[in-house]
Structure formats: C-alpha cells, structure tokens
C-alpha cells in the first residue's frame, strides 16, 4: 500500500478495498518504524489522525459526498498554521505557539476530507536549503541518511520519499519545494505567485512565498494543487481567476512543444552527473517530438544576489513581530523592555535567521537602501523581463533543479554563501513570480536522485503539469523508492 499513489489510494477506497483508517494506520506504522532515523516530522498526533480517518469512513458509509482527497494522509510543513495545534516554524521562538486559526490551505485540505497526519520539520522560518537550520532536529535524506533532504521543506519531502505520507505541503520562497523534491527523488511544485493563498503561511519573504505540493508523481501533485489553489479574499495577493482542473487534461501532451534551454542553467558548478541526467531528459522530450530551443536568461546569474536582498529585507520586517510581547518566546531575565526584546530574539532565533535579519535590515537601512534593496528590485525586473521574452519563444524552460545531488549533512553548514548557491537555479522563478516543478529524471552512480526543473510562465500550471507528465509517462524514475 505504501507504494501506491494518492490517486490509487482514492480508487481503492472507492472500490471498497481499503478504508481511510487502514490507509492512515499504514502510513502511521511507516512513520513509527522509520522516523526516528529520518526525523521528517515535528508533531504527529496519531490518535487524532485515526479520528479524522474514522470520520471520513463514516461519511463514506453514510453515503455523503466526499472531497477530492478523502482519506488521504497529507503531511504539512510546520510553517502553515493549524488551529489549536502547535505551529513552530522550526524555531524556538514559536515553541509554544498555538494559532487560533487554520491557514487557508489547511481549510482546503479539511474541506477535501484529507487526513492531516502531522507537521513536518523545516529550516527555521524556511530559511535554509538543508533542513539543518531547524531548532529541533535535522531531517535526513531517505536515500542516504548521511545526507540532507534539501530544504527548507526537507521534512515534507523526506516524509513523501520515505512513504510516511503519500502527499505533503511545502513552501517555496527560493526553491524550498523544488530543491528538496529533487534531492529526495519526488515531484515538487511551486505554483505561480498568487495562485495559492498565503493566508496562514507564516511569512518569510512575502513577495516570494508560495505553498505547493509534494507527491510521488505528477498526477498526485496536480490533484493536490487542484485542492489548495484558488481565490481567498483574505490574501490581497491571491488572484481571483478560476483554477483549471489540472488532473483532467493531464495526459494530453502539449503539441507542438517548444522547450527553452538556457545556457545560464548549465554553467560552472553544475555536477556532470546531474547535467547528464538532465540532458537525457531533454532527449526524452525530443523523442516525443518536442523542439529544443537555445534561449538566454542573461540576468539569472544575479538571481541569488537579488534574492538574498529582497527575501532578507522582507524577512527582517516579517520577523520583527517575534519580540516576546504578544506571543512567542520571552526571555526570563531582563532589564527593561528593550533588553527583554533583544534577549528574547537573541535566544529565540537561530544563527541563520539572525544572519538574514541582519542582512535584510542592513539592506533597508538609510544610506544602503538604494545600493542594495532598490538595486535588487531593479535587477528583479530585468530577471522577470528575461522570462517574459523566453516564454514568448517557448512553452517551458528546462534545466537542472539543483546543481548537485544531495550533499552531506554539515558539508555547507559553516559556509552560508555555499549553501545559498545550491538554490541558484530555483530562485529566479520566485523573483519572477512564475511556476516551476521538479520531477525525478535520474540517479547518480552512488544512487542519489536527480531532478529536472521545468519552469512555466505566470499561471501556466496546467501546461507545466502536462509537460511534466509527458516525461513521467516515458520514464520510471519516479517509481523508484529508497531502501529504508
């Protein structure tokens, strides 16, 4: 049962071959068996998950109509607010924070009759690319426990890769869904900015953050996206345009299909095995009649620099509210208000979060805002214009998701800049607001998964998913599972 996709699990329930309860029990058993080593989850309430499953089964028995994810366990990154359930962002500063409300995507999951199986580990406030920056635990890559699952949504990616959940939600500010999906050998998608409501997503970089799905295959990712996407009047930046039925046309290939390949995504620093796997994926498409077109994204080499100014500037402000006054950690000993705030923040935030708050504050401070923050916003426009030109010539842009396969835990821990550069290919999509997906496209000789990144224009999710599905139909990389 653990090898089945959500779509197959839905079918089994419909056929009466399986119940929500038995499915949930199976995934919980997997969790109990393996998570002490993988450490994907921060909080799991088994009894509650079973309760939810029983309620769904009762609904089915009563002949009630059921949602699109009825009885399917979904793991949720712990930056998404869950009413009455601790939501920590992987940070000590929110150790005891219990939101009085559900994030919009959580409401959507509940409405779809999904089982919320647990909250997954992540880099603190989604700041990181390895899930090593969690204040609570380091999540390990199910393919090699010495290696990171990527990040920041490493817990969600690892939970799906280790079959502890068939589906998971992550968030992607600079690649935090696509990069861990790539490193864990699963499908991960970042929707276009504005496609999914951010209400209840604890902000890191507000103009970049999006919630997206992790799944074993493209169909499941499309299904989960279908459930969470759509207008929410509580998020001013969430567009009010209809959500296409992503699963309906999934097997219809886009014809003719032109794939843009940018030389900037194949430069220095790209691992040769990764490049090889991506090139063979392109061959798969060519075999299906797609045209490969060389394009240029001349400003994408600057994306990391732009990102570390824009995201940190926004973060420095977004994280100002954690001051020990109204919620969150308050230090024990202090002398006066300002000291209380400084100590609470000093104790509550980890090193990477402090570094980014410092960088963002610096980028916005008087005397530097023009040279840093505003300059970055100008280059951001150039990055967006590069993509506009690219999508005028081709349907999608393809390249590697990450320059390397999963790296070792601790390998980049002391070199923040090296860590930042592991997101070099994913970041520009967030800056431009476009959609992107990572799908498995091969393995290194040592057996680590490799991801193919496909980028689509703003709100071109349907096309993106159909293109991704085409590769999946012709290959079976996505069917491989790690030996736990």
């Amino acid at each position, binding site marked *: 049962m653990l090898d089945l996709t959500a779509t197959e699990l839905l079918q089994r329930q419909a056929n009466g071959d399986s119940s929500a309860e038995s499915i949930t029990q199976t995934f919980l058993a997997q969790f109990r068996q393996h998570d002490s080593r993988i450490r994907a989850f921060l909080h799991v309430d088994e009894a509650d998950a079973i309760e939810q499953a029983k309620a769904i089964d009762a609904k089915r028995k009563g002949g009630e109509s059921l949602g699109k994810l009825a009885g399917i366990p979904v793991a949720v990154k712990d930056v998404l607010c869950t009413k009455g359930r601790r939501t920590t962002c992987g940070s000590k500063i929110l150790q*005891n*924070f*219990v939101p*009085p409300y559900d994030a919009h995507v959580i409401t959507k999951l509940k409405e779809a009759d999904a089982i919320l199986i647990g909250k997954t580990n992540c880099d603190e406030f989604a700041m990181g690319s390895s899930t090593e920056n969690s204040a609570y635990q380091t999540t390990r890559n199910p393919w090699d426990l010495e290696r990171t699952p990527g990040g920041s949504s490493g817990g969600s990616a690892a939970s799906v890769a280790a079959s502890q959940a068939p589906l998971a939600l992550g968030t992607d500010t600079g690649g935090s869904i696509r990069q861990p999906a790539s490193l864990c050998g699963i499908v991960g998608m970042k929707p276009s*900015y504005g496609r999914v409501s951010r209400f209840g997503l604890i902000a890191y970089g507000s*103009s970049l953050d999006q919630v997206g799905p992790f799944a074993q295959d493209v169909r499941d990712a499309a299904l989960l996206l279908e459930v969470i996407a759509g207008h929410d*009047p509580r998020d*001013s*930046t969430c*567009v009010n345009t209809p959500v296409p039925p992503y699963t309906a046309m999934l097997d219809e290939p886009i014809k003719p299909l032109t794939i843009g390949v940018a030389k900037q995504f194949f430069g220095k620093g790209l691992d040769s095995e990764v490049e090889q796997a991506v090139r063979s994926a392109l061959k798969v498409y060519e075999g299906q009649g797609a045209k490969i077109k060389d394009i240029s994204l001349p400003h994408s080499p*600057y994306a*990391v*620099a732009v990102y*570390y*100014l824009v995201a940190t500037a926004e973060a*420095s402000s977004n994280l*100002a509210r954690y*001051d*020990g*006054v*109204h*919620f*969150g950690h*308050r230090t024990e000993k202090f002398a*006066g*208000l*300002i*000291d*209380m705030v*400084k*100590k609470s*923040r*000093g*104790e509550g*935030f980890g090193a990477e979060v*402090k*570094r980014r*708050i*410092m960088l963002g*504050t*610096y980028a916005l*401070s008087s005397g530097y805002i023009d*040279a*840093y923050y*505003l*300059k*970055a*916003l*100008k*280059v*951001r*426009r*150039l990055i*967006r214009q590069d993509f506009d030109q690219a999508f005028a010539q081709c349907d999608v842009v393809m390249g590697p998701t990450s320059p390397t396969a999963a790296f070792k835990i601790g390998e980049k821990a002391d070199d*923040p*800049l090296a860590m*930042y550069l592991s997101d070099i290919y994913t970041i520009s999509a967030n800056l*431009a*607001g476009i959609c992107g997906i990572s799908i498995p496209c091969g393995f290194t000789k040592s057996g680590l998964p490799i991801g193919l990144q496909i980028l689509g224009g*703003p709100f071109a999710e349907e096309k993106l998913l159909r293109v991704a599905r085409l590769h999946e139909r012709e290959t079976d990389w996505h069917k491989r599972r790690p030996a736990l």
Partner: protein
Amino acid sequence: MSLSPDEVRKVAELARLEISDAEVDTIARQLNAIVDYINQLQQVSTDGVEPLAHALDLHDVFREDLPGESLTEDEALANAPARKGNFYSVPAVFGD
C-alpha cells in the same frame, strides 16, 4: 563596501537582536562574504529600470467595511507570554 564590527552592532541594535561580542566578528565575516557576493549587482546596468517589488500585476483589491469575527479576550491573549487581567503585560516602556 564592507561592514565593520561597529556597523554590525548598529544593525543588530536596529534589528533588536542581542549579539555577544564573541559573535560580532563571526557575523561580520559571514555578512561581508555575502555582501561581497551581492556587490556583483553593481555591475548590472539598471538605468531607467523601475524597481519590481511585486511580480503580480494586481491592484485595487479591497474588502467591504463589514464586521468579521473577532477573538474572545481569552483567545486573543492565549499566546501572550505575560498577561495581567485582560491586558498584555510588558516590561515598563520607560525605564530603559
């Protein structure tokens, strides 16, 4: 451009972060490595380019002036680190 330890302290003050003297040098070194990298942006010609704060071309999003649900006092104060009656309690503002 690079940050001196004093500038690091100033930024930390602005960000209300307590940073020990021992941390200052490490943070200064790490930030300077990042700032050095970021300085490559100065090579990009952006004359006449408007800043792009938001990738979405969306405007005029409003809510109507209609009452919504508020929290009860207990719900609102449930996460408060310190509470006095139905108020949040904080160290005296004056006296710093």
